[in-house]
């Protein structure tokens, strides 16, 4: 699992696919749990408010791009409930439909915050590792020069 923690690419993909998964991989379980529970809760409440017809690349594509940032929940929602048909909008739709799709979009956008946090932490970790390696190399070189100087 250590190699997973060092890869920003893996962190990005896992954080996108399931909110909070990257933090779980990095060992930050509390933050991962908070991201998972609250982003999913926001997404599910949006889905309920829009009567499970809120994900639609055909009728509201820009909102869909925002929702897509949530990854697996959006794709699962699309696969399970499908897109609404044109007839759906001709009939009486939920009063909270707009609020629902907005909540789902906000869940996606909040997941971007979680993704950015996961990426920052992996990059920082990687940067810290590179720095410590460089310092060790410098120190090693210095010690070598000093020991070489004393031997002469």
């Amino acid at each position, binding site marked *: 699992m250590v190699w997973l923690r060092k890869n920003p690419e893996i962190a990005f993909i896992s954080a996108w696919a399931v909110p909070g998964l990257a933090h779980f991989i990095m060992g930050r379980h509390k933050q991962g749990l908070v991201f998972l529970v*609250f*982003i999913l809760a926001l997404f599910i409440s949006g889905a309920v408010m829009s009567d499970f017809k809120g994900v639609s690349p055909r009728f509201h594509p820009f909102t869909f791009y925002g929702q897509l940032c949530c990854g697996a929940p959006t794709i699962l929602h699309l696969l399970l409930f499908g897109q609404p048909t044109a007839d759906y909008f001709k009939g009486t739709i939920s009063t909270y439909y707009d609020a629902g799709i907005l909540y789902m979009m906000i869940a996606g956008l909040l997941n971007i*915050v979680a993704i950015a946090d996961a990426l920052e932490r992996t990059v920082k970790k990687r940067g810290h590792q590179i720095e410590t390696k460089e310092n060790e190399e410098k120190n090693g070189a210095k010690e070598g020069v000093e020991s070489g100087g004393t031997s002469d």
Partner: protein
Amino acid sequence: MELLIRTILFLCACYAICVVPAAVREETFKEIFKKATKSFILTAVCIFALSIIVAIIHAFV
């Protein structure tokens, strides 16, 4: 009843919006929820104040 459920959902969603940015900064559950509650209350007060201002403007204009 439906309105009550929707209102609770709305409040939960608003709280969730406050919790996620707090989780980025803080480490423990206590700190996260403390900060989230603070920002949630601040947001609620701001919205309340704004709605009162708008109502006053509508009353006089």
